[in-house]
C-alpha cells in the first residue's frame, strides 16, 4: 500500500468485509463516510500513509450502523466494491458505487495498516514489489 505507482499492479493484504445495507425509508444506508478520490487533494487525508494516495478511505463509522457491525474501521482503504476497483475513482463515482439502489449487500475489499503489519510479522520477510 505504501508504494502506489500509477499504472503498476499493486499487491496488498486485504480483508473481505460484507455489509448489509440498512433500509431507512426509501434509502439504503451503510453507515460510514468516505473521503478521498482522484479528484480530491490527497494531502488532506489524515488516514493515508502516503500523502499522494488518492484512494477512497473510510473516514467515519456510524456507531451501531451496518458498517460497524461488519467490522469496518475508520482509516480503512477501500480497494474494491462488489468486484469493482476503487483505487482510481473520483469521489462521486465511489459514492455512487456504494449507494446503488438495487444492491442490498456490498462486499468490500479493504486494506489497513494493521493487517500488513500482522502479515509481515507472521511471515518474516514479506515479499513485496
Amino acid at each position, binding site marked *: 500500500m505504501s508504494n502506489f*505507482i*500509477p*499504472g*503498476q*499492479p499493486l499487491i496488498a493484504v486485504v480483508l473481505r468485509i460484507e455489509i448489509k445495507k*440498512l433500509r*431507512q*425509508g426509501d*434509502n439504503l*444506508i*451503510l*453507515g*460510514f*463516510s*468516505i*473521503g*478521498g*478520490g482522484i479528484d*480530491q*487533494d490527497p*494531502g*488532506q*487525508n*489524515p488516514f493515508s500513509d502516503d500523502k499522494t494516495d488518492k484512494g477512497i478511505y473510510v*473516514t*467515519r463509522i*456510524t*456507531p*451501531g*450502523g*451496518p458498517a460497524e457491525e461488519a467490522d469496518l474501521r*475508520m482509516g480503512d482503504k477501500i480497494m474494491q466494491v462488489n468486484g469493482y476497483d476503487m483505487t482510481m475513482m473520483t*469521489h*462521486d463515482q465511489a*459514492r455512487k458505487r*456504494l*449507494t446503488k439502489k438495487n444492491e442490498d449487500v456490498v462486499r468490500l475489499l479493504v486494506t489497513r495498516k494493521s493487517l500488513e503489519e500482522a502479515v509481515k510479522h507472521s511471515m518474516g520477510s514479506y515479499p513485496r*514489489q
Partner: protein
Amino acid sequence: MNNSKNQMDSDIQKKIDHEIRMRDGACKLLAACSQKDQALEAAKSLQTCSTRIMAYMSELQRMKEAQVMQKVTRRSSDAGPMDDRLPCKGKVAISDLRIPLMWKDTEYFKNKGELHRCAVFCLLQLGGEIFDTDMVIVDRTLTDICFDNTIVFNEASPGFEMRVELYSCCSEDDYSAGSTPRKLASKLSSSLGRSAGKKFRAAMEPGPCSPVSNGGATPLLLPVPSVPGPKYHLLAHTTMSLSHVQDSFRTHDLTISGNEECSYWLPLYGSMCCRLAAQPRCMTQQMMSGCLKVKQLGGDPQSWTKVYAVLKGTSLFCYHRQEDVEANVEPAFTIAINKETRIRASEKDPQSKVQNICISNQYGGEEVTHTLTTDSREDTHRWMEAFWQHFYDMSQWKQCCDDLMKIELPSPRKPAPLTPKQGSLYHEMVIESSDDLSSTVSDILARRMQELELRSQLGTSPTWMSLFEENNPKSACRPRPCTSRLSGHSPCTPHRLPRSPASPHRCPQLSLLSSDASLTSDSDSHCSTSPCFHRHGWPEPSPNFSLLSSSPSRLRPRTLSLDAKLSTLQGRGYRGGGTLQCLCQSPPSLLHGPLPVSSRSPRSQRSTQTTLSCSSSTSSNSSSNSEGRHSPESSDGAPFSRPSPARRSLRNLRARLDPRNWLQSQV
C-alpha cells in the same frame, strides 16, 4: 583600444581560472561522495563547469582572432566609418521549461520491478553566459520534465542565439567500477530481456553515446578529466532566437541525439514548452532626458511649454519639473514614440535659428503633431540622434518593443511552503472533534427522536414540537435559501423555527435568534445564524416573527430539520447538542447553537455544551471547512434520512467549488 582588449582578455582568463577551480572541486567531490544524489549533483556541476570553460576558451580564441584580423584590415585600405549604430542590449529570460515525455504503455507492464530513472538538467547558453537548471529525476511516472527555474541573461543583443541543451544520465546503476560485476550478475540471474541487456551493456561502456559536446566550439585544448561516476550525455538540444520571444508560452521543437539503446535515453515527445521573454534596455531605461519646449502644432505660436522630457519605452514622458521624475509624479503629458511615429526636423525657426523637431502620431485616425525645440543646435542634434537610435532599437527588437514583457527575477531560495498541512482546516477539525463527541451528539439526537416518536404516538409531545405541527407558517423557514432573513446565506438552520409562540418566554428566544442572525454570522455561509444568547436582551417577538414566516410555509418532516441542523452543527464544529430548554432557562451560560431537543436532563447537557461551545468558537473559524463537511453528514442511520437531493446538490455545489475541501460523503 589595446588596453581594453587586454582588460577583456584578463577578465576571461580570470573566469576560466575560476571555472577550472570549480571543476577540480567537483571532481574531488565526485570521487569522494558515496550517495547517488550527491554524485549526480557533483556530476552536473562538473558538466556545467566544463561547458563554461569551453565557452570561455572559444571566446578567448575568437577575440585573439579578431585582434589579428583587425590588424590585417587596418593595414589594408582604410575602411569607411564602421557601421555606427548598434542596437541596445536587453535582458532575455527563459522560464517554466517543460519537456513532455512519451512513454509507451508496454513499458508500464513489462518490467515490474525496475523503474528506469534518469537524472536530467538543462544547460542554457547565451553569448558568454551559461546557466544550468536544477536537476530533476525522471522516471515512468512523470509525463513531463518540468524545470521551475527562471534563467535571466542580462547582456543579450537582438540577434541572440540561445542554446538549450538537455543532459541526462541514467541513475539506477552503480558506476563505481568495483561493484558492477556483482550487480550484473544479480541482474543476469533474473533473466534479462533483450533490450534490458543492451541497456546494461551500454551503461557499462561509454558506447556510441556522444561525449560531452559544445556545439560548434573549437576543440578543447585542455584534457577533460575522466572521473569515475555518473556522466551526463546530451539528449536533446535546440536554439532559440528573437523570433521565439513572446509574452506567453510557446512550444519549440527539440533535436534529439542518442537513441533507444543508450542508457540515458528518455522517450521525449520532441518538443519543449517555455516562456521566452525579453526586455530590451530601451523599454526599461531612460534613453534620453533633458529640457525641452513643446507645443502642439496648430496652437498658438507663442505657447511653448517648458518640460523635462524623458524618453523611455514607447513614450516620451514630459514632466513639469525634473524632480517629478524621481517623485513618481504623473507626467504632464505623454507623447507616444512607437513604430508608427514619424519624426522629422522642420525648417529652421527664423528667430532662434534652431531646427524644430516634429513628432507626428496617429491617434485613432487623427494626426497629432507635437513640435519640440531646444535651446541649442547641439541639443537638437542629440535629441534627433536619440530618436533615431530608439527607432533603430525598436526595429531590431521587433515584437519586444510593443509592450514591456514581465520578467520575474528568481527570488532567493524560498523554503517550500510548509502550510498545506497546517493550513488544512480539516486537520484542525479532526483534532478538536473526538469521535466520542460526535457520537454523543448523534446519540442524544437519536434518543430524543425516538422519544419524540414515542410521544407523538402517545399523543403528547414536547412543547417545542408543537411548532412543527401547529405553526406551519412559522415552521417553514428552512434550509431553503432563507434570504429574507440572512444576508444571502443559504441553508439556514431550521431549528430556528421550532419555537413555540405559545410559550411566551420562548418567543424572545426566537426573535433573539432572528436578530442575532445578522450579527453572529461568523461569515459562514453555511447558515451561520447561531445566536449568541448571552449577548442580547430579549426584544419582543412579534416583528421578528413576521420575518421568520416570510418564507413560504410548508410542513416539513421533522427528520430533515434535525438532520440539517446536525450537519450544520457538525460542520461548524459545534459539538454541543444544546437543548432548547437549557437556553431558555439560562441563556447567558450558553453560547451557541440551540437544538430542538426535549427538556430532559438539561443540566448535564448544558455542562457538556458549555465546554463544547468554547471549543467551537475556535472551530467556527473553519467556516469554509464547514462546507467541506458537506452533504449528509448526519450521524446515525436511524432517525435521519439523507436530505433531499435538491438541498444536497446545493451544498454539494458549494462544497465542491471550494478546492480546499477534502470531501467526505456518507453512504
